[in-house]
């Protein structure tokens, strides 16, 4: 059994002369909630795309769910879930049709789809909405549904790209409860966010500045190291160093 869900060494991604990701190394333990922070343009999204198999690294090595990011992206794709910052279910499909479609895409066995859909709708308290079009749901509900769909196939890791943007605080709290539940089920959570209070909920966080990882530790250790009271201040101290514009 592998020790790390994600293990990255000296990963670099260049676009022409521009180094979007500059020689980063880190690892994420299984079942961990890993916060991946950084200002806009720091290189988070590029790094995440490489991990998801959407983009090849220019140099460096890494494994995701035990598979090599350069050669085994097909295997990686089967072992991860992904939720992008744009809301990403189909608006003109019904709730159950969305669940079915994505369950099918990720190869959930036919027999299991039906009972697990019912179970999911029950947990989310969505049973009455199973036949509603997704476009009719409030944003917070959609977001919760999108997360549930992303982990429906029990992936090894789920990547969340700013999942709580534009969502009210109450829904954000519920959303984080769902993230904890997923983590309890053994799913590794890799999350980017701009909300520093959310960074406090993570087991460990990394902060990217200008393509490099400037800090990586538990929120408590980071606050102690920089002698401040909140992650917000840690972030400011580090992000101030940035020379790169967006």
């Amino acid at each position, binding site marked *: 059994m592998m020790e790390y869900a994600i293990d990255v060494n000296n990963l670099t991604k260049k676009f022409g002369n521009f180094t979007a990701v500059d020689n980063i190394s880190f690892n994420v333990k299984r079942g961990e909630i890993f916060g991946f922070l950084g200002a806009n343009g720091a290189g988070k999204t590029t790094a995440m795309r490489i991990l998801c198999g959407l*983009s090849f690294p220019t140099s460096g090595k890494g494994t995701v769910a035990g598979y090599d990011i350069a050669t085994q992206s*097909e295997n990686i*794709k089967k072992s*991860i879930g992904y939720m992008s910052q744009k809301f990403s279910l189909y608006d003109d499909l019904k709730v159950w*049709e969305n669940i079915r479609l994505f369950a099918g895409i990720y190869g959930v066995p036919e027999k299991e789809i039906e009972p697990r859909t019912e179970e999911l709708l029950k947990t989310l308290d969505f049973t009455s909405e199973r036949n509603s079009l997704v476009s009719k749901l409030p944003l917070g509900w959609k977001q919760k549904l999108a997360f549930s769909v992303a982990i429906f196939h029990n992936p090894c890791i789920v990547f969340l790209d700013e999942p709580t943007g534009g969502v009210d605080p109450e829904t954000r709290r519920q959303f984080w409860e769902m993230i904890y539940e997923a983590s309890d089920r053994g799913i590794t959570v890799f999350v980017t966010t701009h909300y520093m209070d959310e960074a406090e909920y993570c087991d460990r966080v990394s902060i990217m500045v200008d393509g490099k990882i400037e800090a990586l530790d538990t929120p408590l250790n980071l606050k102690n190291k920089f002698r401040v009271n909140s992650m917000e201040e840690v972030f400011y101290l580090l992000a101030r160093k940035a020379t790169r514009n967006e």
Partner: protein
Amino acid sequence: MKVFLAFVKKEFFHIFRDPRTLLILLGMPVVQIILFGFALSVEINNINVAIIAPERTETIRQITNKIAANRYFTVTGIYDSEDKPAELMRREKANVILRFNHDFNPFVRPVSETQMQIITNASNPNTAVQETMYLQSVINDYFREKQVSSVTPTISPVVRYLYNPGMQSAFNFVPGILGLLMIIICTMMTSVSIVREKETGTMEELLVSPVKPINIILAKMVPYFALSCVNLVTILLISRFVLNVPVSGSIFAIFGISLIYIILALALGMLISSIVKTQVAAMLISAMSLMLPVIILSGMIFPIESAPEFFRWLSCIIPARWYIAAMRKLMIEGLPITYVIKEIVILCGMAITLISISLLKFKNRLE
């Protein structure tokens, strides 16, 4: 395969749950064919003729009756002076003025042209020429009946209009409409629907998933392919039974070449979707770079032969030109498939080129 079918189903849902789009897709062929077939006819009808005749002789009365009896003409009246007809012409109440001189009498001595004059509104030269020709032929007919040899040409050729003896413009438009519609439905709709997923972010979700990207794209094409086939059948049925356009060639050949054209249009849609990022851009590119050239340069409305040389060359790269030409030969002229080999080869070549380019351009990874 199962996943592929699930995707096809999803694409059909996208279309059927958007009734407006569906209505446009299925209603457009009917509307267009009726527009082009009935309303936008290039034949000239309802020509109003004002007649100036200082003296009302029997001959003039007979000519007037002859003109009035023709289905193309309406006589607004016989006037003594030029004032009233000139006013009618300015108000567009009269299209043509037929003027007889005061000494008009064709049976006494040879009629010279000065005895009779046709005045027409040449602000639209094409119509003016056609109106004049119609009117002249009606008058010539009259004199021929009366055996006035001086006006009848000594040799009169017998004209036969091949393939379209009734000279109906619908014959000309039906292949053109097919060529236009396939481009709109296959190219525009496919590219818009692929780009829509890029915009909403679902494409990213799909690319992260284990599904092969090519499956996603192929699944997108299936519904539009099906819709195009439905439209092809609809158009052929309406043309045959409502507009009475013959489907003289072999149905097999007509469908064969249409399928090649549909596939070509789908490949073009895929190519556009791999270049642009927004639905608006996809729509604009399809409309500007495809619809206008198809309408103007394909020979659908304006004959390519009379275009300047540069545009004649340009029209060669427009697939619709070849498709429309082939369909005219097959449908209207009823020629066997051997006469459209050139068009088929060109269309196949274009389709293969487009498919290869779009497959090369198609990004497996979102970079």
